[in-house]
């Protein structure tokens, strides 16, 4: 699988629908605390809504630390072998993003399995804040944003076939850069 599940925090509204559909799909229960994705909200410093979900790291700290070899990176997904897992939760603590979860009712850690390549959370996010992005395209969004914030953008309104349009351009000469 050459696609990554990516969160765009600027678009997230914090509605938690991703949590609900994840728990319903994997456990069949209505409980956002049994999901492999959680929206973390900070306010007011900084104002942030950030869905936190496994990045399926290729060189994964959870895989490294697992004492029973229950976690393996395979075709773009870090998979949990339920037979081998002893539920020691070392992986939960080792993940640098806190993207593996534990729940007192569940025997095993709760970890994103990418729903076999078609994640439920991506399909149901009403804001398009969760996306499946080809690995090669990762960072495109950020690159573009970076350019836009780096230059002093100006805009011109004009009419094309009677329709109002706006064109943005960088007016580098006049501002102090």
């Amino acid at each position, binding site marked *: 699988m050459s696609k990554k599940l990516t969160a765009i925090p*600027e*678009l*997230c*509204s*914090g*509605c*938690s*629908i991703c949590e*609900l*559909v994840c728990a*319903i799909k994997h456990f*069949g*229960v*209505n*409980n*956002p*605390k*049994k999901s492999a994705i959680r929206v*973390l*909200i900070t*306010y*007011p410093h900084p*104002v942030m*809504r950030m869905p936190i979900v496994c990045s399926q790291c290729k060189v994964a700290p959870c895989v490294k630390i697992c004492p029973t070899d229950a976690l393996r990176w395979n075709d773009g997904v870090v998979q949990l072998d339920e037979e081998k897992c002893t539920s020691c939760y070392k992986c939960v603590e080792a993940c640098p993003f806190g993207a593996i979860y534990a*729940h*007192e*009712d569940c025997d095993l850690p709760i970890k994103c399995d990418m729903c076999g390549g078609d994640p439920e959370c991506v399909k*149901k996010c*009403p*804001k398009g804040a969760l996306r499946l992005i080809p690995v090669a395209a990762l960072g495109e969004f950020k690159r573009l944003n970076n350019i836009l914030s780096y230059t002093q953008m100006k805009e011109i309104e004009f009419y094309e076939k009677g329709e109002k349009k706006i064109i943005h351009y960088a007016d580098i000469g006049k501002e102090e850069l």
Partner: protein
Amino acid sequence: MSVKSGYFKKHLHVDLTKGSAERRDLPDTFIEKYIGGRGFGAKLVWDNLRKHDFNVDPLGPENLMVVAPGPLTGVYLPSSGKNSFVAISPATGLYGDSSIGGSFGVELRQTGVDVLSITGRAPELSIIFIDNNKTTIILMPELKGKSCLEAEGIIKERLGTHAVHIAVIGAAGENMVRFACVNTDWGRNAGRTGIGAIMGSKNLKAIVVRGHKDIPVYDVPGLVAETEKACKYLEEHKYFNMWQREGLMNVIEYANEKGILPAYNFKDSVFARHDQINGAMMLDHYKIGDSACFSCPMCCSNICLVKMGKYSGTVVEGPEYESCAMLGPNLGIDNFAAILSANRLCDEFGMDTISTGNIVGAVIEGYERGILSLSDLDGREITWGDEEAILDLIQRIANRQGIGDVLADGARRIIDKWPEMDKIVLQVKGLEQSAYDSRPSISMGLAYATSDIGAHHTRAWTIAREIEEGQGWSDDEKVNTVIYHQKLRPLFDMLGVCRLPWIELGLSERHYENFYKYVTGKEASLEQLLELSNDVYDLTRLINVRLGVSRKDDSLPYKVWANPPLTGPNAGRVIDKEDFQNLLSLYYQKRGWDEDGIPPAGVEKKFED
């Protein structure tokens, strides 16, 4: 057929005087009859009133405060984050409730309770911490005077976790300002009827919840299918995107165009500089993010930041229409940054933006007309649009300094002290009126007059339909619409869901009988649910009647009869007193109440057990 799921069937009762917490079983009959939310609240408040022989001081330890989500709260369906706070209101002395969105109610349900009730008074400023099955009362006097936002941070630090939800009061609640609110998730407020003052009177700074339990749902696949249908309808609606972008702020333009926007304490109903404070202005210069209630695709809440000028750095969740209208045009303010600043101040103090805007507006007009003297105002002049003086006055109300001490007791006390202000403050039953001008819409007047909590639009909101299509409405239709709204809108509060998908995007109310069926396993038609909601309306009326309400209280503010809006499409229009009285009689008749607005003697029996 009876309820098979959807409830934990548990009622958590906390007595702050005794320092005790007890989980009681909820009988099936109670659950089926009152559904949840304000239904549970009204019944528990009624029982408490009977226990005290209808002699309950709203700010006394005996007043029972109920926190009640509904059976659909936290369930996967469009906007299920609602939670009601119910008690005898310190603003009106009558039945009061206020609901919030966000996630507090969801987390409360996940601790395994359907309803929480609180009575008594803690010896010192305290918090209640409900951590799944365990409930503790923790003394935290160090929170005294802390703003809602600051207190939320301190509590999380003290408990060592950010994964909790908190309902907290600020200085206004502690000082028992009679329109203090309860703040959750930093910026969502149970604003009306002064619930925050009740928490203050109980020395209760905050309710903290952390729950991990499954929310019981009878038929998950059925629910998911119904939700997908509803979400699909919403997402394909032509206003869905606009709704996500602007939320309720789009109402400013609409209200101004139709002439129902309060300006200068309702002297006018249009605002010349509306383009400075509308949704487009917010989008272009202030909005930095969306915010949604639990499980809601519509995300109507905005997060705004002031990026330059003297209010630079102000972050606020909001404003929505009411806050913006009452703190903006109603006070003559045309600077969006100043509105954000006032909104933020209200959030920090934990004070209702509607009542605050209403009372400050009345003070400005009172001073303008010479009813209030400069010495009444502690020597500080105040005029329309004077941002600094207005922000200063808000602060004095929250801290009960000078004139603020009188204003903090709300419209009633203001009228007691300065009887001439009766012609200036817009209130019904002691609750300050919200931001829809009823003068062009007599059905909206009826809605305000007969709302069980006072002049608020939550029970019925008929103004848009009357203005747009109802000019030819017969009295019959007006009354029927008000009564239908008073059944349906509170039903959403009982179920624990938001009514905006229905109001704003026209999601059919029929979905909710299916949601109810899939969650509880009990078949009930919408009509049956509406009847249950109607019974609760009878119950809240009964509470009010037993506390002294009758026809004389189902009235409207003086301005509505006597002072027409000066300009705009509704210039010159007022509600005729006689027309209104006729409409009110018809309303009583259709409700089965007598000419004085009293429900028949037999009704009381319905609520005995």
